[in-house]
């Protein structure tokens, strides 16, 4: 097996276990898309064009709540702001690549692909073909996400509304935070975000409560981080 194929295969294998929670998440997303009545083409279109589960659900939720485009788009940007961090971390390993490679790899860079490929890059920094690992992990995520979205679209037309599946949005995001539950500072940041959003839901105009809550919480996170570094 040549090096490229080896890195590609390794990427697919490494990311596979992380696909177990992604699959039901995609189904839930597809069901919600159908539930909110945007139809199968747009539900799948979001998965292909945006390819970011959390931001797709936020977009749907704000849209169905009647938010303006500006608020929807800035909320999508806020939810995806963590990718800036991933890009900054990976840029060291990808800076030598052609522009076309950078574009393709950026499109498929998800939380899961970042996690496994960053790990691989650190261990194999001398390998010229290491970027094939991210191609493998990223396109595995992509494929799983599209398949599960389609399954959700199919199920969404038969799942009865009484099941209260919109509650799964809250549960899904809650589950994405489980690694934060053990960190005291993160708990403070989470509580501020949640409380500001709940109080602000009716008070803050234009459905901008997600952005305002996130910025307030991030401001506190910055204060906590700076206070912590001064102590040292």
């Amino acid at each position, binding site marked *: 097996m040549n090096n490229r194929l080896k890195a590609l295969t390794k990427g697919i294998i490494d990311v596979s276990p992380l696909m177990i929670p992604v699959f039901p998440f995609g189904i839930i997303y597809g069901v919600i898309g159908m539930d909110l009545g945007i139809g199968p083409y747009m539900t799948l279109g979001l998965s292909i064009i945006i390819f970011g589960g959390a931001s797709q659900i936020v977009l749907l939720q704000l849209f169905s709540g009647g938010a303006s485009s500006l608020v929807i788009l800035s909320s999508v*940007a806020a939810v995806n702001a963590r990718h800036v961090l991933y*890009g900054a971390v990976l840029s060291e390993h990808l800076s030598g690549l052609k522009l076309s490679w950078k574009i393709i790899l950026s499109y498929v860079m998800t939380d899961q692909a970042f996690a496994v490929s960053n790990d691989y890059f650190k261990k194999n920094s001398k390998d010229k073909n290491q970027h094939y690992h991210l191609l493998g992990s990223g396109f595995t995520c992509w494929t799983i996400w599209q398949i599960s979205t389609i399954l959700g679209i199919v199920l969404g037309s038969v799942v009865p509304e009484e099941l209260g599946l919109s509650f799964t949005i809250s549960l899904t995001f809650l589950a994405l935070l489980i690694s934060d*539950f053990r960190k005291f500072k993160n708990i403070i940041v989470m509580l501020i*975000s*949640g409380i500001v959003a709940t109080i602000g839901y009716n008070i803050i105009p234009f459905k901008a409560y997600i952005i305002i809550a996130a910025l307030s919480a991030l401001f506190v996170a910055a204060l906590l981080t700076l206070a912590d570094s001064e102590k040292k």
Partner: protein
Amino acid sequence: MHWSLIIYAGIITFITRFSMIFLLKKDILNDKAKKILSFVPAAIFPAIIFPPIFLDDAGSVDLENNPKILAAIFAIIVGYFSKNIIATIFAGLILYWFLIFVYYQ
């Protein structure tokens, strides 16, 4: 919904992924900036989680007879101990279904 909204959202998402890979030669974000960016999920997701759980259809805070609060607390407990995403979602969903279909009936 208009397709243009979806395309703009796609472009914005792509920019968040592409910008640093395109611009940086090396990793130049300092540790403090990285630390703060690592709080982004904790700062945003609760803003999405809390309002639908605590607010009723009329938009006022509903703390009594609210099955979503109990189900969310149960999900947090299961998540804390299991560290398993799927177990967390299903624990919350199953308690929620039990409460709305059996307990509150």
